[in-house]
């Protein structure tokens, strides 16, 4: 399987993503520079974390207009798999590929720590191998990670099973205390209606290498690869 990892000026989790996909998951990976429009026949596209274009104006606002994003949006609209982590999630929301937006954390602080999430819908390409009662420990590192959408949008997302992950405590209980940033309904990750575009604030690529003593994030990549390879 061939992954493309998009790189903007200011991306800083791109090489972690490349490393995990190539060295841990043993897949082909190409880097997609923001000025290019050529997706190099990839099967899936990762938009990594960081601060694209310095996050000037709003997080993800300028990245949305880059040449590569035009191709990524076309790819997604044709059913191609696209997933965004952290700043990547913000970019996908700004681009209109995912509903809602990410606001400043409630406490106005940049938060960098391990948190817990649980899967809400495990019938998607991105979550297919994760059992419903499993709690994943994955780090977050963001200042603007408070997921927000209006009531109508949230209702629609619930009906379409678009909420994929919620913040929870280590026992898997979705509580206010376990919500690190004030996200509406503890939302940590969502997908679009067609289930081919996915975004999450926590960093699974920072929890996929044995050397880091935490490989809880790996199952998200395994789910993706497993589903796609089984279709080929």
């Amino acid at each position: 399987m061939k992954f493309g990892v998009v790189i903007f000026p200011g991306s800083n989790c791109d090489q972690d993503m490349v490393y995990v996909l190539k060295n841990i998951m043993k897949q082909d990976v190409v880097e997609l520079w923001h000025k290019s429009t050529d997706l190099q026949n990839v099967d899936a596209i990762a938009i990594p974390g960081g601060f694209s274009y310095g996050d000037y104006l709003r997080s993800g606002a300028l990245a949305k207009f880059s040449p590569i994003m035009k191709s990524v949006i076309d790819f997604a609209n044709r059913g191609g798999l696209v997933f965004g982590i952290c700043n990547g999630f913000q970019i996908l929301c700004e681009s209109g590929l995912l509903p809602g937006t990410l606001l400043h954390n409630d406490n106005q602080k940049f938060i960098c720590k391990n948190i817990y999430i649980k899967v809400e819908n495990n019938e998607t390409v991105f979550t297919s191998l994760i059992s419903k009662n499993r709690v994943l420990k994955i780090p977050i590192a963001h200042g603007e990670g408070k997921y927000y959408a209006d009531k109508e949008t949230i209702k629609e997302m619930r009906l379409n099973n678009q909420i994929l992950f919620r913040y929870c405590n280590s026992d898997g209980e979705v509580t206010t205390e376990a919500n690190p940033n004030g996200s509406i309904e503890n939302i940590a990750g969502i997908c679009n209606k067609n289930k081919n575009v996915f975004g999450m604030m926590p960093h699974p690529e920072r929890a996929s290498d044995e050397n880091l003593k935490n490989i809880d994030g790996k199952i998200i990549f395994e789910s993706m690869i497993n589903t796609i390879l089984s279709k080929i």
Partner: protein
Amino acid sequence: MKFIAEINIMPLKALLDPQGKAVKQTLHNIDFKTVENVRIGKHISLEIDADNKQQATEKVDDICKKVLSNPVMEYYEFTILE
């Protein structure tokens, strides 16, 4: 003709504005207790070429809608100066 647009982009009133809240708290702490509400947004000033004021207004509105603001969390208002 050259016009100057003075644009204000503010968080939607329905949303909590944590920056504004923190500043209000600080103002209270240093005895500006009569401050009842603070909201923080962005001010953008841009120069634009247009045939007339109406065309400038339409262009700036389009720019605000497409780039400068995100309607999910912000609203904008602007004035055009010659």
